[in-house]
């Protein structure tokens, strides 16, 4: 092995370690790429049907998004604020109700008494510290989100030169392959995002309609949360069901059962009928792969890892199919 090769190898190892140290930054970067692809889909569609150049098309899309969000907010915000206020008032009642239901078990009553005894003044101080830490974390998260949005806008503004930058960092004989890989990843990610957006809006509308028909309070908020959490398969819908369930439990247990059945039907319909049909052309993920990826990334990177697990798996699947299977393993005879 020559000196040149040794230095290159050492450089790669150092680079890998650096990437591991900076995995949070890389996660934000990946989130920005996902967001950029999500923006790029309507932008390129707009460019195809009209003669706008890219910045104009981006401006139109962002303006449309802001306008749509504003309209939606104006339409829904008063109700939403009202409902959130209602929700914060209801929450202690829900906890009480659950406590009553659970407290019926004789063994836990003494435990409850002891827990109440624990919640004295000297215990509140670390709670305050925790609250401050939580606020700091939230601020940190908001800053990261802003950074992510900004990065995404920059990426959408000029995707070609960023693509060229990535291509230039690969060896010359791999550049055609790398270009192909990048466009395949973009295709897969775009297809996945489009499919999930359609199915999330379907879930949102159906949940809203169903909850409104069942006359559950906070129908809109619940529908919105359920729709948004559809982007995190398997774990998200389960968590999203808890909110309307808790609210319905307040009215009566029978209503809670109805809500549970509604959510189960909707989620299973979404997971087993709608999503496979929408994604069958672009991405073909085995169900276990998604679940395992969420668990593994959750163990490695925490909650942001779980949220970004599916897009990451879509990209990783394309990469491992094209590089590991077709370039290395198939040729290893």
């Amino acid at each position, binding site marked *: 092995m020559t000196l040149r090769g040794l230095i290159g*190898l050492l450089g790669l190892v150092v680079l*890998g370690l650096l990437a591991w140290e900076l995995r949070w930054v890389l996660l934000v970067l990946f989130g920005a790429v996902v967001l950029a692809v999500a923006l790029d889909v309507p932008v390129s569609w707009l460019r195809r049907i009209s003669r706008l150049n890219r910045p104009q098309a981006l401006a139109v899309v962002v303006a449309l998004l802001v306008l749509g969000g504003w309209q939606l907010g104006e339409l829904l915000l008063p109700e939403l604020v009202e409902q959130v206020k209602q929700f914060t008032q209801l929450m202690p009642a829900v906890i009480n109700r659950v406590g009553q239901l659970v407290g019926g078990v004789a063994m836990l009553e003494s435990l409850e008494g002891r827990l109440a005894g624990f919640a004295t003044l000297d215990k509140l101080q670390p709670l305050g510290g925790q609250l401050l830490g939580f606020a700091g974390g939230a601020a940190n998260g908001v800053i990261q989100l802003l950074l992510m949005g900004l990065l995404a806008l920059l990426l959408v503004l000029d995707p070609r030169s960023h693509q060229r930058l990535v291509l230039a960092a690969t060896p010359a004989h791999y550049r055609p392959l790398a270009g192909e890989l990048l466009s395949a990843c973009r295709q897969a990610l775009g297809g996945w995002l489009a499919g999930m957006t359609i199915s999330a809006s379907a879930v949102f509308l159906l949940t809203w309609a169903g909850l409104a028909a069942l006359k559950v309070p906070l129908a809109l908020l619940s529908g919105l949360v359920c729709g948004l959490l559809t982007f995190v398969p398997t774990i998200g819908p389960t968590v999203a069901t808890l909110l309307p369930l808790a609210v319905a439990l307040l009215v009566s247990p029978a209503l809670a059962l109805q809500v549970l059945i509604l959510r189960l039907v909707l989620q299973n319909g979404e997971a087993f009928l709608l999503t496979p049909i929408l994604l069958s052309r672009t991405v073909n993920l*085995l169900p*276990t792969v998604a679940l395992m990826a969420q*668990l593994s990334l959750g163990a490695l990177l925490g909650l942001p890892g779980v949220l970004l697990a599916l897009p990451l798996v879509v990209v990783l699947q394309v990469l491992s199919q094209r590089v590991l299977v077709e370039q290395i393993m198939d040729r*290893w*005879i």
Partner: protein
Amino acid sequence: MKFGQWLGLIAVAAALLLLWSLRDVLIHLFAAVVLAMALCTVVGAVRERLQCRRGLALLISLLGLALLLTVTVAAVVPPFVEQFRELIQQLPVAAAKAMTLLRQAMDQSSRMLYGQEALNWIRQTWDESSSTGGSAAVGQSLQGLLGLAGNLGSGLIQLLFVLAVALMIAVQPAAYREVAVLLAPSFYRRRLREVLRLCGEALSSWMGGVLISSLCVAVLAGIGLSLLGVKLVVANALLAGMLNIIPNVGPTISTIFPMSVALLVSPWKALAVLGLYVIVQNLESYLITPSVMHHQVQLLPGLTLTAQFVFTVLFGPLGLLLALPLAVCLQVVIREILIHDVLDPWRQRRLTP
């Protein structure tokens, strides 16, 4: 070595490190695969019997298993819970009784050896230690209870996860096997498919054997306990059958409960129970298991104990539970890949030139 090969080596090392840090997830995945294998065995049997499609067979076997489970739960659990609660209540009494027995024995032996003074000293220190331990124990037990509740919640989620993954794998096992095969070099794919098939066969025959031997142990323990007139027969027999899945450790734990129950009646009965369990265990390990298990699946006893120790250190309690299936799979993999494909060709290569 060339640059590309070094790169491959480093990539493999990084992948191994990643797998090591994800070993908790991996052991859950393995548990799901074992469960899915059990389901697939049942599905295969149903399919052969009824000559129907796979989806229908899966549905039938799932429904059958659910029915069996509900019937068992409905028939066995209420008396089991009742008896188990009684058992838990009686344990402290039995422990106190065992303590007094132990103390008497120590008294007598120390009186014989050192005379009266040593006896007084021992009694004093014993009382001090037991009185100071009391107040601190309450706080500890509360903390333990809270920790237990948390553990129970996360354990439930883990169980759900394992069940979900097992179901998903059982629905389309061939697709998952093909993915695993695709990740191997192309010259090895056919052989890997064969090895995977052998692993599956070994696992399913091991599970069948364990099921039969556990049933035998439960029935034998139940008959013996009812002959001896020990109380709480059903609970103890069920415990003995279930804990039989974990060799060495499980039977030892399952002996504690009936012995403590029998100790309440008289020390001689406890000894009789101990004798009964020793006989049942020996019957199981030297008569039932060898005749039920296939020859290839059998593990040497020393190997079993080593596997349990190693996997417990690596993966925690779940590793102890899954030590045997892991060992069965590893045995097949080592025999087929390491010995047949790697080590055996060495000698031929040395002989040929």
